[in-house]
């Protein structure tokens, strides 16, 4: 039997969930603003590369982080510009940018390093791991929660930040108003395009941390197409969490759990191809189960309404 409740396993779950959680928070902001950001995948991939390159050449982790953010936000800006101002279908635009970045990152990597597989020749920096005082000394919990990468803690913080932004600030109120009903928002003087632009740019910043986590924490190099669908999994997580930061975090954790479970199975002689399928199959199953649940909720509500009407 696989022992799932070891602190090591739960540590892995948190580690694997980090990039999905960050991208999912980016997706939450976009969904709330009524824009679909399919380009999360491309944003992550781009920031993963630019973060590595800038940190490698400047030998400064903070400049590297800035480089990653600039790279990711650039893709988000392209999406916003084409979708909001040139009226490209936002889904098609996102697909186009994802195609562009898969090859585009290899193009840039080859032009700078002469390598097409990975940025091994660049001496890039990593984000540090952090031991939390006091918590690290608690037996099991310390092993689980302490010693993670800085970006993992940022991801957890991000859940609260996004929640605060959406529900406690004027901008968040406007953003949700635009997402709920753009015409109504526009009639009270909210510039819909501008709010959606900010939402997309902000999602670019958050997803960039997810991308940099891949190449500057999870691994120590950028490799071709290393995001491997995590941007799409994040979209599924946001859909399952109904774009609520807390619900979305739970969904992200679930996908991280399934991926870690896959790694556990690897040592048990199951062919690697099946291990590779685990995150994607669990995403599909997750989407279906959630959709089923929601349909039942809707049916229940309808029934209640009918019964109330009958009573009345």
């Amino acid at each position, binding site marked *: 039997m696989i022992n799932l409740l070891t602190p090591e396993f739960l540590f892995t779950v948190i580690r694997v969930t980090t990039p999905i959680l960050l991208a999912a928070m980016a997706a939450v902001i976009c969904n709330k603003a009524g824009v679909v950001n*399919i380009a999360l995948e491309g944003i992550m991939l781009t920031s993963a590369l630019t973060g590595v390159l800038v940190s490698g050449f400047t030998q400064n982790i903070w400049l590297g982080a800035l480089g990653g953010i600039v790279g990711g936000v650039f893709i988000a800006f*392209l999406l916003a510009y*084409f979708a909001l*101002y*040139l*009226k*490209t*279908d936002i*889904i*098609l*635009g996102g*697909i*186009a*940018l994802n*195609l*562009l*970045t*898969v*090859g*585009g990152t*290899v*193009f840039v990597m*080859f*032009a700078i390093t002469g390598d*097409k597989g990975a940025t091994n020749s660049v001496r890039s920096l990593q984000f540090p791991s952090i031991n939390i005082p006091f918590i690290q000394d608690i037996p099991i919990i310390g092993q689980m929660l302490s010693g993670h990468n800085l970006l993992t803690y940022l991801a957890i913080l991000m859940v609260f930040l996004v929640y605060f932004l959406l529900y406690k600030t004027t901008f968040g109120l406007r953003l949700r108003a635009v997402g709920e009903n753009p015409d109504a928002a526009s009639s009270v003087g909210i510039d819909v395009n501008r709010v959606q632009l900010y939402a997309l740019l902000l999602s670019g910043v958050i997803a960039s941390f997810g991308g940099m986590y891949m190449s500057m924490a999870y691994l120590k190099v950028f490799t071709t197409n290393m995001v*491997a*669908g995590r941007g*799409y*999994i994040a*979209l*599924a997580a946001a*859909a399952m969490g109904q774009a609520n930061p807390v619900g979305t975090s739970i969904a992200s954790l679930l996908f991280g759990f399934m991926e870690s479970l896959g790694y556990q199975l690897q040592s048990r002689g199951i*062919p690697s*191809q*099946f291990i*590779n*399928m685990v995150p*994607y*199959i669990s*995403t*599909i199953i997750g*989407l*279906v189960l*959630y*959709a*089923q649940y929601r*349909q039942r909720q809707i049916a229940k509500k309808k029934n209640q309404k009918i019964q109330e009407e009958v009573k009345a």
Partner: protein
Amino acid sequence: MLKQWLKKQSVDSKFETLRFSVAIIIALLVAFGLILLVSKEPFEALRHLFLGPISKFRKIGNVVETAIPLTFLGLSVSVMFSANQFNMGSSGALFMGGTVAAIVGLTLPLPTGIHPFVALMFAGVVGGLITSIPAIIKLKWNASELVSSLMLNFVALNLGLYLIMNHFRDPDAGTLASFKFPETALLPTLIKGTRIHFGIFIVILMVVLIWLFLAKTKWGYALRMTGMNMNFAKYSGISTAAVILYSQFIGGFLAGMGGAVEVLGMYDRFRWQMMPTYAFDGVIVAVLGKRNPIFVPVAAILLAYIRVGADTMSVNSDVSYEMISIIQGFIIIMIAANAFLKHYRQKMVVKEATSHD
């Protein structure tokens, strides 16, 4: 009334041609700028990019060979997107189609002629089933077909690799590849000095059939109506659920068959170790070809030309092949930009209106 409508049509189609040309030119200019930026000998690289495909007879052959799977993928995406479904499963269907064709080729002892036909049919059905899954999930539970189809691509890729590498791998092949296909399974090469194969007839047949289907049958009509306005289609008595199902099945069938044609026409073994780089090009071919089966092969040839050019360039210069993804991304995003050159369109309409009245 009719005359005015015709007038508007002509402005629209003129404008469309202009918009497409400008989009392609801007994308090529972006490529040009990038090449200037990264290459030590940019003009040499550009020469290979643009003239490489017509430099040798063999290269012209390469353009045609590359255009065959691109046309299959373009038709596939055209049919699926025409029903207004963002189903991205073509690449998974292509990969599994190739896998199934390889398995049929290796396991069923069939005579020449019938063998590839059976392989193609099996591959098509499996491809169709793959792209039907997101459609079923959407119809039954209303979950996004875009995300589920993208996830399914990873599943199809790994399933195909598992089947070939664990059950049909030839340990003596030198590389990761299947056993050699028997002669009976192969699609014969047609023109000496190239690898242009019998698949070209199959793809032409498919273009004609899909055109007839979309333009001349009631199922094709129902499909287009559903794509244009789902509610309107529903109220006029079209079963939109059935339309979504058969459109996604046909789309996957085409992609699966394309994979089979590629594997049996171009290779003597199954040699894919990852998703072929062109597997996602169905989207750009469909967008460039305006989802019209007649334009799809033209778009596929244009794209194949750029691909072969980029390949020649990457072999002969210091610019990498992946340049083309940048060109392609820009082409899609600009062609899909409805407001791109909008002011120019208004000018054209005004000019047309004032010149005749």
